[in-house]
């Protein structure tokens, strides 16, 4: 079963993260790298995302595409990255999410299974 873990954080925290000096940032990455290392065999994809000030949203209004600046999720939280994981069931995905080291929140979403053979 495949799930996507969406890593959410407050915009405030995202800003703090960005403002960190490089040495500090590197140290802060250590637990994240450890997490990816620990669950490496179950992680089948994912990326850290650039901050949401880099986002561009294409919105369809009556079929017409309108390009706007910013993310489509409005609010205090933003998605900092995601990981696709292949595990036995929701409990296993939740356990990985609980181990996520940077706090914030992790949304666990099953992906649609169209019955293709597992890769």
């Amino acid at each position, binding site marked *: *079963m495949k799930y996507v873990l969406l890593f959410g954080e407050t915009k405030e925290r995202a800003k703090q993260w960005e403002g960190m000096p490089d040495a500090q940032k590197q140290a802060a990455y250590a637990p994240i790298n450890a997490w990816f290392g620990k669950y490496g065999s179950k992680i089948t994809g994912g990326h850290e995302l650039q901050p949401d000030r880099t986002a561009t949203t294409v919105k369809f209004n009556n079929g017409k595409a309108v390009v706007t600046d910013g993310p489509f999720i409005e609010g205090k939280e933003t998605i900092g990255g995601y990981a696709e994981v292949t595990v036995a069931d929701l*409990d296993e995905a939740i356990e990985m999410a609980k181990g996520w080291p940077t706090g914030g929140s992790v949304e666990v979403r099953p992906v649609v299974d169209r019955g293709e053979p597992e890769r």
Partner: protein
Amino acid sequence: MTAALVRALGDFDLAEELVQEALLEAVEHWPKDGIPDKPGAWLLTTARRKAVDQFRRQARFREKLALLEGVLMRDDTAEGDDRLRLIFTCCHPALSREAQVALTLRAVAGLTTIEIARAFITSEATIAQRIVRAKRKIVEAKIPYRVPAERDMGERLDEVLAVLYLMFNEGYLATAGDRASRRDLAEDAIWLAGLMVRLMPEEPEALGLLALMRLHLARADSRFDNEGNLVLLQDQDRTRWDQERIASAMVVLQRAATLRRSGPYQIQAAIAACHADARSWEETDWRQIMALYDALLALMPSPVVELNRAIARRYLVGAEAALPEVDALGEVLDDYYLFHATRAELLRDLGRDAEGRVALGRALELTANPAERALLQRRLG
């Protein structure tokens, strides 16, 4: 007699429970109807009848399980394990609390959607949809159908017990008027807690919850007077308390204590036991109750528990000592009617009547429960 039933049923706890229930019935009937010719046979017949009732419930359970079977995968093992799997799946933290409650009542206790809807004073369609959505999430998100691993057991058991306690309170806290028209959810919750105890006899918190429920329910009838007015603990007619139920709760609580792992439900049950033990309000052991609240706070810090400890301090030491403790909770509990009702009482004790009336008014704004409102209104005069 217990042994005869154990042989017949192969279940010691169940046999014990049935005998106890038969004895309860005897206590109720014999003084009225006279002692039967063959008391032993009477008891055994009654116990057997109780067993049949129990098995009917189990049959209902099996029926519901069959209903769920299409949705939930299951492998073939002992029936007890199956029930546990079902309970833990119904109370999975990935489901909303509402869904957990509805699903547990439907799949484990065997209630119909109409019965559940009546208990929560909502439409059958609402409950049916809640259950359908929950089942769909179980399948689509692949919530596993199994007893949690040892590592997660503490957390997951807490979740189950929280669901049962909420269910119980929904029934227990219903006012007298409501109660007549509502299904007795408190009894369903007690039955489910008893089931958990049978399935996980080594879990002291499950025992603690069962004891807590029994102790509350033993006093249920004295909580309202004939006109349906709420009667406070200090004014309750203690002769109306169900002594058999209290005794059975004490047995359960003692069994929990022998397992030597304390927890919030056991402590809350112990507090309820202190009240149940006191022959009169004046004989209440407030020192012991204070100590138990301290223990509870250490395990589960909460402003509501602090408020209750302050109330215990009022009775142990006096209003003057309790008021500052209550006032300190003002910021977090400003929306809680019992905070203001408690303050009102303390202010009145201290002769600060004007302030007390303001606090009472605030309490009144914050509760919609008709019995509680009536009580506060009586105090306002």
